C-alpha cells in the first residue's frame, strides 16, 4: 500500500475515523486499534513477514526488561548481545546473505552452481528501519539512557507504527515511545498541519521525483549513448529525485502521524544548501545518521579524546556501514566509502593555521561550497544509482574524461519545472519544516482552498502509474 495510492487514502480515512471515534481518553483502545491498523497495513505488502515483525518486537521487549532487572554487568551485556545478534542476524539473513555468499565464492574463486543461492526470499519491507529502531531501544536501556517500558502494547505500537514502519524516520524510543503512553486528544491545528504536510509530500513525490525519475532512467539505461554534459546533468537530477522521493515520503509519514496526534522527527533540512559533505549528512536522512553516530561512531571513538587517525578510522567504518545499510550491493558499499573519504578529507588540517577544509568551505562563498558539494554528490550519486560497479565506472569515466562522443540532450521537458517551484518554495520558507506550514497565517481561507485544489488537480493530472518509493527497497 503506497502512500501515494488510492488504497492508502481509503485506509487513512477509515483508520482516522475509527481512531478518533474511540475517544481521546481511551488510550488502550486507541493503541490497540493503532496496532491492528499497523499490522494490517504491513500485511497488505506481505502478511508472511508479520511474524518476523512481531518476533523482533518481542525479542527487544524482553531484552529491555531483562537488562533492567539484571544488576550483573556481564549478564546485562549478554542480553544486549542476544538482541544485537538477533536483529543483525535477521538483517544479514534476509538482506545480505546472498551478497556475502557471492563475495565468498568470488574470493575463493569457487565455481558457483546454479543452486547455491538457496536463500531465495524477498527482503521483508522496512526491515532495515524497524530492526534499527528496536535495537536502538535495547542499547538505550543498556546504557541507562531510558527506562524500559512495561507496557507491551505500547512497545508493539512503537515498533510497528504504520506511518513510519516501512521507511522511517528511525525514531528513538526516548521521543516516540512515551507518546503511546500519553492520552492523545484531538488537536485541530495539528490535524490541519498533518493534511498540509501530506499534500506537500505528495507534490514532491508525484510531481517532482517521478518526473525527474523518467529523465534520469533514460540516461542511466543507456549511459553509453550520452555525452558527459548530459550524464552530469542526469546525476544532478537524480540527486534531486532521491531527495524529493524520500523527503516526500517522510513528509507524508510525519503528516499522517500528526493526524493521529503523534510527532515524528524531522529527517531532512534542505540538504542541497550544505557547504560540505559532512554537513550534507547532517541534513540528509538525519535519523539514520543520528543512529549510526550514537550506536556505531561514538562507541568506536570512545569517551576520551581520540586521535585524528582513530576518528578517521571510526568515520570510515561508520560511513561504510551506512553505505551497506542501503542494500547488498558493491555500489552502495563504495558510496559509503567515498562519503567517508570526503568527510575525512574535510576534517584534516590541510590549510593555513591548521584550518580544515570544512572550516574553509563554511567561510567560502555559497556558490563555491555548493559547487564542491555537488562535485562530491556527482560521484556519490553515480554510485548510489548505478546497478553495478561496471555501470558506475562507465558513467564516471565518461563524465570525468569529458566525453563528447554521444548525444546531448537536456532531458528536460516543461514538467521538470516543478523542481524549480519546489526549490523556490523551500528556499523562501527555509525556517519552516515544509513550505505550507502555518499557511492560515499568510493566506485567507478562499485563497488557501484554491491553492489546495490547484495542487490536488496537478498531482492527479500528472500522476504516473504507481511507483514504489526509492527508500522502500532499503
Amino acid at each position: 500500500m503506497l502512500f501515494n495510492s488510492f488504497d492508502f487514502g481509503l485506509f487513512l480515512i477509515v483508520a482516522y475515523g475509527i481512531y478518533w471515534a474511540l475517544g481521546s481518553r481511551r488510550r488502550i483502545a486507541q493503541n490497540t486499534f493503532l496496532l491492528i491498523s499497523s499490522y494490517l497495513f504491513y500485511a497488505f505488502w506481505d502478511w508472511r513477514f508479520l511474524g518476523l515483525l512481531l518476533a523482533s518486537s518481542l525479542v527487544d521487549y524482553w531484552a529491555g526488561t531483562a537488562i533492567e532487572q539484571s544488576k550483573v554487568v556481564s549478564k546485562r551485556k549478554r542480553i544486549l548481545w542476544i538482541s544485537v545478534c538477533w536483529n543483525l542476524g535477521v538483517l544479514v539473513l534476509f538482506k545480505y546473505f546472498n551478497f556475502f555468499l557471492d563475495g565468498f565464492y568470488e574470493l575463493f574463486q569457487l565455481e558457483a552452481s546454479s543452486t547455491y543461492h538457496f536463500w531465495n526470499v524477498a527482503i521483508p519491507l522496512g526491515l532495515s528501519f524497524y530492526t534499527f529502531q528496536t535495537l536502538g531501544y535495547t542499547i538505550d536501556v543498556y546504557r541507562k539512557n531510558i527506562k524500559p517500558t512495561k507496557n507491551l502494547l505500547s512497545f508493539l505500537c512503537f515498533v510497528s507504527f504504520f506511518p513510519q514502519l516501512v521507511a522511517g524516520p528511525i525514531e528513538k524510543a526516548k521521543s516516540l515511545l512515551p507518546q503511546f503512553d500519553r492520552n492523545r486528544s484531538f488537536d485541530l491545528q495539528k490535524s490541519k498541519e498533518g493534511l498540509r504536510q501530506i499534500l506537500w509530500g505528495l507534490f514532491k513525490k508525484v510531481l517532482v521525483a517521478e518526473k525527474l525519475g523518467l529523465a534520469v532512467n533514460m540516461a542511466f539505461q543507456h549511459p553509453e549513448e550520452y555525452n558527459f554534459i548530459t550524464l552530469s546533468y542526469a546525476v544532478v537530477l537524480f540527486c534531486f529525485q532521491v531527495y524529493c522521493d524520500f523527503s516526500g515520503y517522510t513528509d507524508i509519514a510525519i503528516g499522517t502521524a500528526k493526524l493521529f496526534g503523534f510527532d515524528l522527527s524531522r529527517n531532512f533540512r534542505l540538504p542541497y544548501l550544505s557547504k560540505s559533505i559532512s554537513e550534507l549528512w547532517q541534513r540528509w536522512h538525519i535519523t539514520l545518521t543520528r543512529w549510526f553516530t550514537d550506536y556505531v561512531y561514538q562507541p568506536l571513538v570512545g569517551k576520551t579524546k581520540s586521535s585524528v587517525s582513530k576518528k578517521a578510522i571510526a568515520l570510515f567504518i561508520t560511513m561504510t556501514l551506512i553505505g551497506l545499510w542501503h542494500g547488498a550491493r558493491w555500489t552502495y558499499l563504495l558510496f559509503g566509502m567515498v562519503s567517508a573519504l570526503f568527510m575525512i578529507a574535510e576534517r584534516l588540517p590541510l590549510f593555513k593555521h591548521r584550518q580544515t577544509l570544512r572550516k574553509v568551505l563554511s567561510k567560502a562563498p555559497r556558490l563555491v561550497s555548493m559547487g564542491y558539494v555537488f562535485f562530491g554528490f556527482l560521484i556519490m550519486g553515480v554510485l548510489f544509482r548505478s546497478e553495478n560497479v561496471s555501470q558506475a565506472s562507465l558513467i564516471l569515466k565518461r563524465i570525468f574524461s569529458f566525453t563528447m562522443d554521444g548525444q546531448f540532450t537536456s532531458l528536460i521537458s516543461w514538467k521538470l519545472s516543478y523542481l524549480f517551484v519546489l526549490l523556490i518554495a523551500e528556499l523562501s520558507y527555509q525556517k519552516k519544516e515544509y513550505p505550507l506550514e502555518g499557511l492560515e497565517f499568510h493566506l485567507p481561507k478562499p485563497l488557501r482552498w484554491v491553492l489546495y485544489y490547484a495542487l490536488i488537480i496537478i498531482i492527479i493530472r500528472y500522476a504516473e502509474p504507481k511507483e514504489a518509493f526509492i527508500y522502500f527497497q532499503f
Partner: protein
Amino acid sequence: MQRTFITYCILFFIPVALGYLTVEYFTRQIPSSFQINKERLEKDSDQIETLILGSSQLMSGINAEWLFSPTLNLASGNQHHDTDFKLLMGLLPKLPSLKTIVLEVSYSHFELPHNGADFWKNSVYLDYYDINCFERFTYFKDRLIFLSNPSFFAEQLQEFYLDQTMQPKLNLFAFNYADSYGQFNALNYNKEAIDQKDSFKINLIENPALYHTNAALFKELIDTLQNRQLQVIVASPPMYPTYLKKRVPSILKRRNQVLQEIVAQYENVEVLFEEENTSDYELKDFWNQSHLSPSGAKKFTQSLNTLLNSR
C-alpha cells in the same frame, strides 16, 4: 472542533470527488479498442476461432477484418507474456470455438520484464474484459480507468477533446486504420531523415537471468495450450531496416534459440517470422521503426491468413 474539522474535510473533498467522476466519464467516452473488444466478447464470443495476444506490434500489425477465421485481437501496448497468460486463462471458458492462439515473440521479448501484478492496464482488463490480472482481491477502485494511469489518460483527454489531434478510426475488429500517427508520418516519410534517425525505442540491455524466467513462462504457456489441444502461431512482425541493424546479436541469438526449441518440441506450434522481411514491406508500411502502419498491417495479416488457412 473535531466535528467541524471533519465537516470541512467532507465539504472540501466533495468537489474533488465530483471532478474526478466527470473526468472518469469523459475518459470512458474516448473510442478505444477495449470497448470494441468488450462488445465483441459480449456478442460473438461463441464464434471466435482465433485469439491474438501480444503487444502493440501485433495490435498495429494485424487487422482481423482481413482474416477468414473469426478473430479477436486483444494485443495491446506493453502487454507481455505473463499478462497474455492471465488473459488467456480468463477467456478460455468464454470462447468455446477457439482453435488458434497467436502469440508474439519480438526481438527482445524474453529480456524485458514481465508486466507483473501492478500493471496499470489490469484495471482496463478488469473493467472491460472482466478478467482479474491483479492476482488479488479487487474492489471498485480497481475498475477506475483514469486513475489507473492519470498522466496517460489526461493526455488522451487533451488530445481527443481539446486539441482533437487524436481521432482514432477503429473498425469493428478494434483495428485503428487512421494513418496519421507515428514518427515516420511526422518526418513526412522522408527516407533519408528516417534512415539517419538513430534514437528510437529498442532494448539494448542484455538480461540473461530474465531471459531464463521469461522463456520458461512462455514454454509453460505453450504447454497449457497444447494440453488444451489449441494451435499456436508465434508471430514476429516486420521491423524497419534501421531497427534490424541495431539489435544486439546475443539477445537475438537467445531469442532465436527459443523459437527453434519450441518448433522442435511442440507439434501444435508454427512460427510466422516476418521480422527480417525487408523485401515485401516499404517505407509507408511502417508507423515507426518497430510498428506497422495500416498498409503494412494488411500485408502482414495476409501472411497470417495464408498460414491459418493452410492448417
